[in-house]
């Protein structure tokens, strides 16, 4: 069964149409990378999937449930979907452990001891075991982003959305976050990843979608999309990365 089905998604900010009819299907354990220049609609698409943005038309089905139909509680839907933001968005007034246990305790009603035990295991697994009682501002960017990923995993989501999670990091910190994502992929996590890291997309993705101007222009296995360069705009976009020595 598909974990995520997006059909004909349209979204405008005022006069500007940002998504012009997106169709996307993501199967269980599949890793889909969204690539495209800034402003192509990757982030907006992810935010729409997590129902953080209202959209104008289209349908979103998560694990067989149409979440766009009337009477669906968006809070319940969001608990099934984890999202990690470019800017981490950790809660600065809470320790790492409190950040991770907040949603399980308050949204899912997990008892404190149980939530802390689960969170402790997750933090240890991702190398943050000794940081659990630190406040986010004591952590490096890479550690903060890993903590944010752990926080998103704490509600045991069926689908994880990653929105350019390495874009705000210093280059030497990118690796540790990418290896966490690799580990999640290996463990079978279903993920939709918006990224500028082309090498990473080629390595990790089962499928790559190239977005431009609110439409998915290319879709297929990474080798096909990244190498074939069939469409003109794809070529122009990728040329910038080749010039920059990133591909």
């Amino acid at each position, binding site marked *: 069964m598909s974990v995520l089905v997006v059909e004909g998604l349209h979204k405008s900010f005022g006069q500007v149409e940002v998504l012009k009819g997106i169709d996307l299907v993501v199967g269980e354990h599949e890793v889909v990378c969204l690539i495209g220049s800034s402003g192509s609609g990757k982030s907006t698409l992810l935010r729409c999937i997590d129902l*953080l943005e209202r959209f104008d038309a289209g349908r979103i089905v998560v694990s067989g449930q149409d979440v766009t139909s009337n009477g669906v509680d968006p809070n319940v839907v*969001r*608990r099934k979907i984890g999202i990690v933001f470019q800017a981490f968005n950790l809660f*600065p007034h809470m320790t790492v452990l409190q950040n991770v246990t907040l949603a399980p305790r*308050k949204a899912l009603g997990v008892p404190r001891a149980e939530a802390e035990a689960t969170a402790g295991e997750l933090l240890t697994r991702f190398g943050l075991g000794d940081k659990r009682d630190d406040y986010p501002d004591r952590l490096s960017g890479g550690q903060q982003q890993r903590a944010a990923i752990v926080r998103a995993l704490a509600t045991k989501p069926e689908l994880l959305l990653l929105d350019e999670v390495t874009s705000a990091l210093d280059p030497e910190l990118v690796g540790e976050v990418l290896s966490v994502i690799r580990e999640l992929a290996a463990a079978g996590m279903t993920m939709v990843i918006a990224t500028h890291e082309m090498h990473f997309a080629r390595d990790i993705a089962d499928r790559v979608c190239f977005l431009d101007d609110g439409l998915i222009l290319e879709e297929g296995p990474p080798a096909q999309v990244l190498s074939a360069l069939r469409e003109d705009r794809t070529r122009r976009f990728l040329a910038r990365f080749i010039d920059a020595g990133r591909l």
Partner: protein
Amino acid sequence: MIALVSTAIVFAGLTFAIVNAPGWPQVHQAFFNGHRFRADFPDIAKAFLLNVKIFAISEAIILPLALFVAVLRSLPGPVFFPIRALAIAYVDIFRGIPTILLILLLGFGAPSLNLSWLPAGEVFWATTALVVVYTAYVSEVYRAGIESVHPSQEAAARALGLTRLQGLRYVILPQAVRRVIPPLLNDFIGLQKDTALVSVLGVIDALHQADIDSAATFNFTPYVAAAVLFVATTIPLTRLTDWLVSRERAQRQAAGVAV
């Protein structure tokens, strides 16, 4: 050291100028009469307890009530427009009315309603007036705090499946309140001083007691005694505020957060 010397010089100069002013003997007699001070101070200090009591009770009501008004005003979406409008109207009106005017209006007007289930008495209505006015001020302080929390924090809370109320309770408000503690204390100080306004209703507070003593002896020293009491309570609050502000600033710099 330099600060100490220059302070000493400035104050010595000021004292010299005042003490040698032609009217000083009369002023000294009328305002700084040691005998009258000692005689009237106990009465005024006793009456000052009422000021402290009014301050403590109003503040205990204002803090949660103002937060409530601020939260109402921050509710998003068209559905809540009437509630937002009410909150805005409340703040606009009661920040605009001079406190002393509202005390007079409520103190003389409200008892005529004969609402038997409410305590009568000037102290009750004067306290109510202070609560109404300061809730309007303090709610704006809270609102500034709420708006200073970046929207991405709300997005992160909602993305985790927390409801809007949970996001407010666990994510937005703790950060907002922490940021506005110094300005809140500032309003505390204002309120502590404004408790003297209740004297216009004939309530025997420190100011009114000073009035009475001064009228009885044709001497203004009781006012100075009342002033001393107010200053003695507000200065610690002021220093606390300064200390909290500088600590907050130091913390932010340590955290490397751009303000």
